[in-house]
């Protein structure tokens, strides 16, 4: 098991946002976590990535407990988060954003990984001198994924990468995620766009107000009447 979360509880002050969530991700899989606004998706990802401390519960990555570890340490273990809203450094150029993600790397490894990102996203190479603020939403999402690749994780968590993007662009980015996955990166994808997410993922979990209410193979979930009614407009 690459990533396993058991009985996770997280709160903000006295707002209890995640109520005992458990899920697992195996090496090489694409797993999706779908749920409506406020279901607790971002809270879960941020907690796994170390940005937030859980109240209780176990988080194991590659067999080691990472619950409560600080985010910059978790990244070094190979777990990268592409956060909600992309969070590009707008005052840094495309190249500088990638360079910063490679903070820990030596020069040779850094340029190798940045070349790899430019391979997936030639657009970023064209725009490498441009400030993050001036990129389009799609380019920012590419850069956010690119940064996660440079940190070198073999496990990538993505928080609503489709947010605010045109369907065609979402499709392009999802195709690249599939390719990244084929090259060995395990993916945990959080989405409201259940349709796209279930098409890409092997398995999925459905989250409602801090609880997992359904789990299964993507094809089964897509056909489940509950999911169709709530998330697929069916």
């Amino acid at each position, binding site marked *: 098991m690459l990533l396993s979360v058991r009985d996770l509880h997280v709160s903000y002050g006295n707002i209890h946002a995640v109520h005992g969530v458990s899920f697992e991700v195996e090496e090489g899989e694409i797993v999706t976590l779908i749920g409506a606004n406020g279901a607790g998706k971002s809270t879960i990802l941020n907690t796994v990535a170390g940005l937030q401390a859980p109240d209780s519960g176990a988080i194991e990555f590659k067999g080691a407990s990472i619950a409560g570890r*600080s985010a910059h340490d978790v*990244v070094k273990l190979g777990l990268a988060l592409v956060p909600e809203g992309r969070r590009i450094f707008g005052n840094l150029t495309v190249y500088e954003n990638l360079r910063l993600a490679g*903070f820990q790397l030596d020069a040779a490894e850094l340029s190798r990984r940045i070349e790899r990102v430019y391979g997936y996203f030639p657009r970023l190479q064209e725009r490498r001198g441009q400030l993050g603020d001036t990129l389009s939403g799609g380019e920012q999402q590419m850069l956010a994924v690119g940064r996660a690749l440079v*940190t070198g994780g073999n496990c990538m968590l993505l928080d609503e990468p489709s947010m605010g993007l045109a369907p065609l662009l979402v499709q392009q980015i999802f195709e690249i995620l599939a390719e990244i996955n084929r090259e060995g990166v395990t993916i945990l994808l959080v989405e409201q766009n259940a349709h796209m997410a279930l098409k890409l993922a092997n398995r999925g979990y459905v989250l409602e107000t801090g609880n997992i209410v359904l789990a299964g193979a993507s094809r089964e979930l897509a056909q489940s009447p509950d999911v169709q009614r709530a998330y697929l407009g069916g």
Partner: protein
Amino acid sequence: MDLTFFVQQLFNALQLGSLYALIALGYTMVYGVLLLINFAHGDIFMVGAFLGVFASMVLGLPFVAALIVSMLLTGLLGVTIERVAYKPLRHASRLSVVITALGVGLLLENGMLALTGADPRSYPEGFINTTSFSIAGVNLTSVKIIIIVLAFVLFFGLYAIVQRTKWGMAMRAISYDKFAVPLMGVSQNQIISLTFLLGASLAAAGGILWGTAFPVLSPYMGLRVGWKAFIAAVVGGIGDIRGAMLGGLLLGFIEIYTVAYGKDIGITSTWRDPIVFGLLLIILVVRPTGLFGVARRQKV
């Protein structure tokens, strides 16, 4: 107009402005990274000046060595102040941080007073080369030239660090969005410490140079100078190091030329500070974000 006199004042203005700039850089860097106004920074400048005196009197170090020792020790003092006094308050209200900063300043002033007594101190004879010379009727001293050159060298060194190195990128990244910095595998605390290290050591350089230009040191020397440098940073656009440099120089120019030409029109030098602050207020009314400032993105 007397050109020689004008050029003479130009060098005085550059000297004073460079000194303000060296201190203003620390205010602006800390604000950029933490949105915190380090009100103890003027007193850190004072400590830097005194550490220079100790290094030269007690250890017998020459100018350059004393400068380096004082910059290092003062830099570490800056890091320690952040770790001990500010870090525990990172999520506290602005007001408690401001009060803490003022308290740290008082501690430094009174600590230094207890340590050195009330007698003013100065650098020993021969600490720095004080040759005077005259070019085309303009009287210069080697001290003046050293101060101006060193301040610019330090500024461009800092600018290169901020623009070209990964450490500088991390500092700029934090000032834009703290949230995502740890996701890059970068420890925020390390970058914050680096910021205090750089800011405090530049203030120390300013302190030593100040002490060679205006050779009387007192534990309270950081108060007035600190406020002025802070205002210079705000006028330049707080958070931007080019702004701090420009704001410091501008302040030096306004001060020196107000005094130099004010007396011809009946303005005595006691009016210097009110006029300086008045002019700066006008700049801020016209450009509230300062000369280099951009309106900050509202952060969630």
